[in-house]
């Protein structure tokens, strides 16, 4: 079926300057519409809302992307959205934690909705209230429909779950009004990405590349019907670079660099950034000639620096988040794949020499700013540092205001609409915390016992954010850096370590079958923690649909006793037929 529609062009360029309302005027607009709705919003025969929360998010952004010394795309602007949640019923049973497949999301008319509802550029008291009015109205009607469907499902089933839908918390007010929106000389950062990308021009072996800069500042205003209020400011900036090429046998090779901070002035120096871009470029070119693994390797593997942190971030940390089973017509369901520890509180999840803390209140570590820090979570609950794993045993999970059986109240971990980790620190008892040299010796000893000629040291693994937002946009769609199996993790930098200490780079490879349970098999860790600042994907989509948020993993090198590392098995695309024009110089 082909559908044709004559449409008029609505070119909506979303930009604007600073609004002129004071913090208090903005909060007042939010309070007034919440109060009016709590007092008067109801349909006869249907329940009134028992809880309403509204959020205004104003985002200021700068972004630049360059290729071989040239700008490709730049943007700068400011956008404002309101997000609204309405609950009907009561704390013990309401419209949430219910999966309604029949809900007609696609029937929405554009301009309707309660999340990411755009507010005019220079909004005033009335334009803000107007959008809140429509958003709350929409959310209320949606909530009542969902609530009645949920009740119908409950009446038809023998439900054993008596966990409340929403937990009560202390009413807090948090006003961070001392911030100032940072204005930057954007041209300077455009020049920066141009200069960094120009470095790659000297290496025509590179097929494609990207260097980008981003600076986002969010002003968040929040009011709920319980009296919780906050104003908080969050800023994020980063420089990312990525390169791709193909080896002579067609295998794709990639590498990337990323550095994130709160404001651009805290990014690494110009010289360090130049050196990082050059390093990933040279590494990729060197790897072009490196030997891939002949066969799958199964044995001890050391994860160093970024690789150790990434491994924790990708495989272990997402399981530290409390996830409520959702009721549906087909019973309770958990849609997330990160649910390994939901019933493990009290059980062992790491070796007994390892402990793990969530430290959102910690702002830096050994002088390095931590990307996941915050003082108050997105539901207005104060953040707290929590020991999640003590001497190998799971103590609790990170939770927002949605309770689960073993975690009945919030510990201030709601980020972008659901519980999420932020700064994670992994500590070891001294006995098992050894120098990198000792780790290597131990690994080689284990290898010898298994008649393995070498052990593998993994130094860098693929970051999911970089993969989906950068590398996929510069690499051909059928470039396979790793197989499509979701459980496999692509390795960017790894070496074979021989007993004589020689390191030999491995081209292409992926880690197979590492699960959260595999971390119990860590046998030694390093004694120099690495601070990894990264963007991680929220477990479930947030109140405003954001997906990537900052996190920090402070983690030593890790020695696993037995991990499978396999060569990428794929039919690779042929290498380029023609030389890169950069080689021709005319």
């Amino acid at each position: 079926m082909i559908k044709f529609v004559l449409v008029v062009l609505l070119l909506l360029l979303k930009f604007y300057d600073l609004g002129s309302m004071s913090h208090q005027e903005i909060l007042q607009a939010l309070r007034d519409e919440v109060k009016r709705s709590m007092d008067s919003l109801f349909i006869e025969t249907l329940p009134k809302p028992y809880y309403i929360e509204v959020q205004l998010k104003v985002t200021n952004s700068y972004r630049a992307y360059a290729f071989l010394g040239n700008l490709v795309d730049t943007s700068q602007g400011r956008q404002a959205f309101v997000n609204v949640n309405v609950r009907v019923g009561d704390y013990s049973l309401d419209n949430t934690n219910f999966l309604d497949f029949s809900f007609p999301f696609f029937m929405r008319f554009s301009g309707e909705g309660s999340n990411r509802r755009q507010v005019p550029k220079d909004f005033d008291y009335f334009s803000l209230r107007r959008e809140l009015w429509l958003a709350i109205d929409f959310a209320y009607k949606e909530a009542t429909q969902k609530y009645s469907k949920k009740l119908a499902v409950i009446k038809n089933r023998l439900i054993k779950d008596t966990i409340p839908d929403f937990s009560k918390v202390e009413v807090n007010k948090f006003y961070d009004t001392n911030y100032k929106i940072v204005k930057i000389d954007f041209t300077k950062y455009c020049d920066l990405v141009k200069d960094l990308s120009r470095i790659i021009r000297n290496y025509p072996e590179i097929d494609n590349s990207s260097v980008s800069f981003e600076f986002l500042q969010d002003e968040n205003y929040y009011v709920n019907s319980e009296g919780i209020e906050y104003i908080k400011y969050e800023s994020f900036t980063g420089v990312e670079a990525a390169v791709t090429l193909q080896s002579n046998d067609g295998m794709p090779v990639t590498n990337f660099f990323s550095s994130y901070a709160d404001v651009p002035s805290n990014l690494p120096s110009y010289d360090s950034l130049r050196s990082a871009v050059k390093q990933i470029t040279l590494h990729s070119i060197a790897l072009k000639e490196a030997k891939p693994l002949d066969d799958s390797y199964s044995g001890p593997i050391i994860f160093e620096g970024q690789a150790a942190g990434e491994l924790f971030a990708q495989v272990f940390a997402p399981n530290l988040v409390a996830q409520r089973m959702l009721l549906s017509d087909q019973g309770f369901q958990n849609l997330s794949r990160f649910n390994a520890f939901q019933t493990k509180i009290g059980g062992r999840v790491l070796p007994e020499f390892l402990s793990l803390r969530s430290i959102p209140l910690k702002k830096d570590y050994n002088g390095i700013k931590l990307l996941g820090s915050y003082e108050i979570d997105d539901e207005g609950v104060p953040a707290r540092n929590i020991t999640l794993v003590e001497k190998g045993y799971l103590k609790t999970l990170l939770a927002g205001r949605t309770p689960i059986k073993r975690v009945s109240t919030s510990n201030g971990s709601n980020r972008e609409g659901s519980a999420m980790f932020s700064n994670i620190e992994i500590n070891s008892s001294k006995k098992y915390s050894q120098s990198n040299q000792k780790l290597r010796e131990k690994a080689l000893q284990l290898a010898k016992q298994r008649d393995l000629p070498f052990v593998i040291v993994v130094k860098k693994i693929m970051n999911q954010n970089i993969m989906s937002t950068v590398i996929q946009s510069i690499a051909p769609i059928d470039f396979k850096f790793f197989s499509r199996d979701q459980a496999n993790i692509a390795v960017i930098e790894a070496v074979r370590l021989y007993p004589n200490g020689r390191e030999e780079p491995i081209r292409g490879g992926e880690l197979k079958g590492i699960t959260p349970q595999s971390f119990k098999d860590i046998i030694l860790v390093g004694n120099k923690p690495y601070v990894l600042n990264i963007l991680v994907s929220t477990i479930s989509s947030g109140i405003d649909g954001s997906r990537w948020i900052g996190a920090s993993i402070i983690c030593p090198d890790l020695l696993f006793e037995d991990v499978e590392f396999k060569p990428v098995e794929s039919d690779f695309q042929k290498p380029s037929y023609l030389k890169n024009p950069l080689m021709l110089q005319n």
Partner: protein
Amino acid sequence: MKNRIIKYCLLIFLFAHFAYSADENVIISALKKEIERFTKELSSEQYPPYYIGYQVTEVQSAGVTSVFGRTSSKGTSFSRFLDIDLRVGNYQLDNTHRTEGSFLTRSSFSFRQLPIEHDELAIRAAVWNATEQVYKEAVKQYRNVLTSRAVKVKEEDTSADFSIEIPSKYFEKRNFYNVDLDKWERILNNVSKIFSDNKWLLEAHISFSFKNDYKIFVNSEGSEISQNQPQFRIVAFARTKAEDGMVLYLNRTFFSFSEEGLPDESTLRKAILDLVSSLKALKDAPLMDTYSGPAILAGEAAGVFFHEIFGHRVEGHRMKDPREAQTFKSFINKRVLPDFINVVFDPTRMKLNGLDLSGYYKYDDEGVEASSVVSVDSGIFRRFLMSRSPIEGFKNSNGHGRKQVGFRAVSRQSNLIVESRRQVSLPKLREMLIEECKRQGKEYGLLFVEVEGGFTFTGRTIPNAFNVLPLIVYKVYVDGRPDELVRGVDLIGTPLTTFANVVATGDDMGIFNGICGAESGGVPVSACSPSLLVSLIEVQKKAKSEEKPPILSSP
């Protein structure tokens, strides 16, 4: 980074900080060098490219939107995109040949954003990298085509995959437009205050938008074309909800090729006042039941009607696809409309009755010079709209291969103009409507004043129907009662039957400028027609929301 996942926002959020000196020759030179290199160096491959076409589109845009008297968004942008059409095989049979399931595949790198500066080597590096991918994909597709041909029965239409055309050379310097966005912001904010006085409006905005596509086309056959395609638009939109939950909306659009051609503040003010009062009347209008009987489609509505039910069916490439119904394939040189009607598609026409036509262009997106196509002459169907994809009996393009950046060109409409030799005054047309109603024993006829567009099914597996979406419809009573505004119906039918029922036309000319969306993306078109009297049309009830209007009053 964080923002990449909201690319859809960024695309509408761009801001150009840099002024670029126009040096089109750098791009043309880069494209020509890469074509030459690929053609030469791949010549000894088993499947060398026999055709390479590059199109670079530089998009300069600016826009501002006002909501209830306040600026919602404002910005400018400049981007540069590359599209590649690379073919292996030969003109008769190449990698683009349709195979089963091939509609699901698309060359992964046929489109790429290019650096916006004039650095020939960097542009060449980007073009080279993208072309490598497209070539590999093309070879893969061609192998599939060869295999498919070996196992399938002979096709009905054995026309070539690509037509041979005379290369064209045409050069325009890139125009840079200095748009006074502040002026438009001021005007829009002034006029959109009118919306604020109407609390029953749930959504209302007015936007000014400007876009110039500067297209540079170079191919391996020797064509070199560069042309500007500017568009200036103002769109006012308002939405409300009737008490029964029906979502109602209206818009007013103004189009011009120049900023000066757009209306002034007082004209916009009148347009918004009219929009608001029309929407208010519609909100209070009664629901209409299903109906079949005579109707008048007023000018603009008639244009859209023709665009939907006729225009899409004469897009030539559909005659090649066995999944398509191919309504007119067997009607060449046969009657499809009354003998007083001509239907012409004329992309060379810039204006009609003093108004700019948005389907105007000099060369199409395959580098073929635009030409006027008389598709229906005195009611007899004569020819299809052709891209470079030949069909039985039509071996060449007539300059209608069109596309949006990022898509492959297919035959698309341009300026559709309905000409009539049986014109009567509008009062007379109305009299004829009433007479026809009386003849059929109907209490009333319908007058379609505004439509928003529509859709049509052209495939074989489903009924070949159309659905035109009216916005403003009146009942015209035969007993002299005043016309009554009604809501809640869609105009439906099948094309050939409906055409046979066109009885007469008015002496007016309605002009609709819009963007038509189909498989090659959104392209600017116009649809121009006199009012039509149709002896029999059918309407069905419109789908509607079951949501009530907002419970609380506007704050």
